[in-house]
């Protein structure tokens, strides 16, 4: 560490100039000749049978291209894990806003009226709008019992240890849905001809997910389907699965009309129809000794998956594995299930189940601390994982981690102890404004869970351009997090050339190999390693050719690369994923190395609660983490700050209000995200240790900062008010109800 020229340096974002000049081309900035505009007719009810579709008067329907489920050439399915998510509802609908028919017209201004003139008639069936109703399985709305997936994860002998407990502490915790609110809505353009096949350009995270889904939906051969990611204006998981849907819809209209078709959602449609973070309910029952040693726990997790299974099984998996937090549990049993309801499907959102279960454990730790009369930081300190101990999946901590050091630094930077004592003293005499400080300790596994990376079997490549520039060929996409920049840094560092002499290949499935999806905090660590290996291969080939000699400068590399291409046609090196040594996973028992590496963090939030308005202001935020090697300090800091801001939103502002399965506040006017005046100073500190399995010691970073803010803030609110709140989001009206009427803070009221 410290020897590198480019890795670890704040080089400029690769596509940054295009972005600050307004030149970057997003999907809605693109127009193709003869292009039509598409729109979607959606279900107005939560559950039922479609009786008929009528096209009302006043619309020149002969000018429109109309697609229904009967036009689907292949499988009527958005392919993910299971086979339950239709591309268009054929006979049944299972949630409000479910797509039923598609319309296209050259004049986009005619579409809203046309959509409104389509009348779908239904036989309405009873629907399920809560996890409790879903658990009762009456009615059954999915499968045999409304359960998408369940896990049982056990370590030690949970049943035998209760008798040794001095105290048993129980708690129940809940989190609400959260909208990604990327500033760019979902959108896609499709073009089709029998000769060229199908091309879909889109705002998306995972080109090969869309490819797989569209091959299945169209029935076309793989080589006749091409997916191209264009500049993507934020994603956060929200463009992991849904682009397969909107891409399929654009494709169907393009195939039927023979013309290119663009579908771009407006904000209201994007918020109402696309996926959100899974709401959760987590129950904890914990055995502790009177001196604060965790003996064991039973944890029950329930996630609301919405109407189709989408990614719920894998979200649940991550929630399950992270449920115990960063602590040593001699005994633990986690039972988890993802349940079907009649909301639009919930999907991937930064953190992917971990924020839900970490919110629960980190609020629960404060409850345990209070029950035992031990300070919250001290209780955590006595139980933090150490090298040589095992995680809840039995994974041996082999890294030389030092979580106490992270905690010490977070407490020192936030002046935690002095403030904890001072606020408690001052709050006793304060009537209008009370202050509090709270912390959360947590971990986040990097990359796919368990055997996931082995199944993905990712392939990365590097080649050189005709001009002799090195080029990174991956399906990993840029949507603001810095993929382009860090992968070029790794390549440039490894090749020993300037950052400017490396460029990214196009994120186009006809050009790049399948490096897997851009999700799960896997790009820095997993893909970075593959790019590193491919760069090593490229360099070896050039050196072996005799065109290049050790000690070369960038211009010599460029000349040699150019010459090689002239002589041989191409210069290319590939690298395929190999599991790090000692990584084994038992999918049945949920035992083993759940992740090749974990990022670790301790966050501290300081708040002021206005006792007249019940408004909460976060005054200061300290985020200390160990993410292995920091590849680019500006980008990494930006990832942490952005994640913390999203976590603050989830905790205090962002409430999805549901009415019979439909989002009622699907506007930026009444779904509130933090503004520039709502965010405290976010002070980011890295304990930099090159411990990861990624190139130059990197681990995952993108999702980690979503995990800690909500519990840290609610712990601070409990410190300020003396009242325990165990649900997020916690809005002033929720606090008002609990503080005045004495009702427990509840999830969003169903209208």
């Amino acid at each position: 560490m410290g020897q590198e020229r480019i890795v670890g340096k704040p080089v400029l974002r690769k596509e940054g100039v295009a972005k600050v000049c307004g030149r970057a081309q997003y999907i809605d900035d693109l127009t193709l000749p003869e292009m039509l505009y598409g729109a979607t007719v959606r279900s107005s009810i939560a559950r039922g049978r479609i009786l008929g579709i009528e096209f009302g008067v006043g619309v020149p329907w002969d000018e429109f291209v109309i697609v229904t489920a009967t036009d689907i050439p292949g499988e009527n399915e958005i392919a993910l894990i299971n086979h339950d998510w239709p591309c268009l509802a054929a006979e049944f609908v299972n949630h409000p806003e479910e797509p039923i028919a598609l319309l296209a017209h050259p004049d986009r201004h005619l579409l809203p009226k046309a959509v409104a003139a389509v009348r779908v008639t239904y036989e309405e069936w009873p629907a399920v709008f809560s996890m409790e109703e879903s658990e009762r399985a009456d009615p059954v709305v999915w499968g045999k019992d409304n359960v998408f997936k369940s896990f049982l994860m056990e370590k030690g002998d949970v049943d035998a240890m209760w008798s040794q407990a001095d105290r048993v502490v129980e708690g129940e915790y809940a989190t609400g849905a959260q909208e990604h609110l990327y500033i760019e809505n979902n959108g896609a353009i499709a073009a089709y001809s029998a000769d060229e096949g199908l091309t879909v350009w889109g705002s998306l995270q995972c080109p090969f997910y869309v490819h797989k889904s569209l091959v299945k939906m169209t029935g076309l051969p793989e080589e006749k389907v091409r997916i191209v990611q264009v500049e993507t204006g934020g994603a956060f998981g929200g463009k992991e699965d849904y682009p397969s849907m909107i891409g399929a819809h654009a494709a169907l209209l393009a195939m039927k009309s023979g013309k290119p078709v663009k579908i771009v959602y407006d904000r209201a449609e994007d918020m109402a129809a696309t996926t959100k973070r899974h709401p959760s309910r987590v129950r904890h029952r914990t055995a502790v000794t009177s001196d604060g040693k965790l003996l064991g726990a039973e944890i029950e997790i329930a996630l609301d998956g919405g109407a189709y299974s989408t990614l719920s099984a894998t979200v649940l998996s991550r929630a399950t594995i992270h449920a115990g937090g960063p602590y040593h549990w001699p005994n633990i049993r986690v039972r988890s299930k993802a349940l079907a309801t009649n909301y639009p499907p919930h999907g991937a959102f930064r953190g992917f189940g971990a924020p839900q279960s970490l919110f629960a454990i980190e609020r629960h730790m404060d409850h345990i601390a209070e029950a035992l009369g031990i300070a919250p930081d001290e209780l955590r300190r006595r139980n933090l994982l150490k090298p040589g101990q095992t995680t809840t999946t039995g994974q041996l901590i082999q890294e030389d981690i030092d979580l106490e050091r992270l905690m010490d630094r977070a407490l020192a930077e936030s002046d935690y102890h002095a403030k904890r004592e001072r606020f408690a003293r001052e709050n006793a005499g304060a009537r209008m404004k009370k202050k509090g400080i709270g912390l959360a300790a947590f971990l986040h596994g990097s990359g796919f869970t368990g055997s996931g990376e082995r199944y993905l079997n990712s392939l990365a490549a590097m080649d050189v351009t005709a001009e002799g520039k090195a080029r990174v060929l991956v399906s990993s996409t840029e949507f603001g997090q810095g993929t382009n920049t860090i992968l070029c840094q790794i390549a440039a560092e490894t090749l020993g050339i300037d950052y400017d002499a490396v460029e990214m290949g196009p994120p186009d499935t006809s050009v790049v190999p399948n490096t897997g999806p851009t999700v799960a905090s896997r790009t820095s660590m997993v893909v970075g390693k593959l790019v590193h290996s491919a760069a090593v291969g490229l360099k070896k080939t050039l050196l072996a050719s005799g065109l290049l000699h050790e000690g070369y400068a960038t211009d010599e590399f460029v000349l040699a690369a150019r010459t090689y291409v002239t002589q041989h046609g191409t210069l290319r090196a590939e690298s395929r994923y190999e599991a790090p040594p000692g990584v084994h996973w038992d999918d049945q028992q949920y035992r083993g190395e759940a992740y090749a590496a974990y990022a670790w963090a301790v966050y501290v939030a300081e708040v002021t609660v206005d006792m007249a308005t019940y408004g909460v202001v976060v005054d200061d935020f300290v985020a200390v983490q160990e993410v292995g090697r920091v590849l680019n300090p500006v980008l990494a800091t930006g990832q942490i700050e952005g994640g913390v801001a999203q976590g603050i939103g989830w905790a205090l502002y962002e409430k999805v209000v549901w009415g019979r399965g439909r989002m009622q506040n699907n506007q930026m006017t009444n779904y509130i995200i933090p503004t520039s005046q709502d965010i405290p100073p976010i002070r980011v500190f890295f304990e930099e240790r090159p411990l990861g399995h990624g190139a130059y010691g990197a681990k995952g970073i993108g999702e980690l900062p979503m995990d800690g803010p909500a519990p840290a803030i609610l712990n601070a609110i409990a410190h300020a008010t003396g009242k325990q709140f165990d649900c997020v989001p916690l809005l002033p009206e929720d606090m008002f109800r609990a503080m005045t009427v004495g009702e427990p803070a509840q999830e969003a009221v169903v209208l």
Partner: protein
Amino acid sequence: MSVQHYSLVVNGELKRVATHPMARLLDVLRCDLLLTGTKEGCGEGECGACSVLLNGELVNSCLIPVAQADGAEIETVEGLGANEQLHAVQRAFLECGGAQCGMCTPGMLVASAHLLRKNPHPDLAAIREGLNGNLCRCTGYMRIFEAVERAVTSVGEERA
């Protein structure tokens, strides 16, 4: 209402468009004048991604009917600077990490440039207030604040 003719001075150039009087300035810029740097985020004046300057005032172009902009001077992100001649705020956003996904960036840059014209030496509170009509979902705003602060410094240095 039928199609009407309108004249706008966009980034210093006179432009004529024939369109519906209630066409949004945002659509006129993006679809008629092919200036796609200005983005649509919400279409209801909440997010500020479509921010432009209309006669020097910061507006959400999604809320301005073109009839209201007839004869006006409009400045968009494309007018701030390009490539080798970046505006100080563009360069600072690039260096400080103020742009992540880039979707709020054009509006955020226009708002930042507007802030610095009105107040060449804003403190942090003034920066926060000046940008409160522009939502960013990626950065948590810290890098953006730093960028505006750096732009203040660099503009000062250039003048010195």
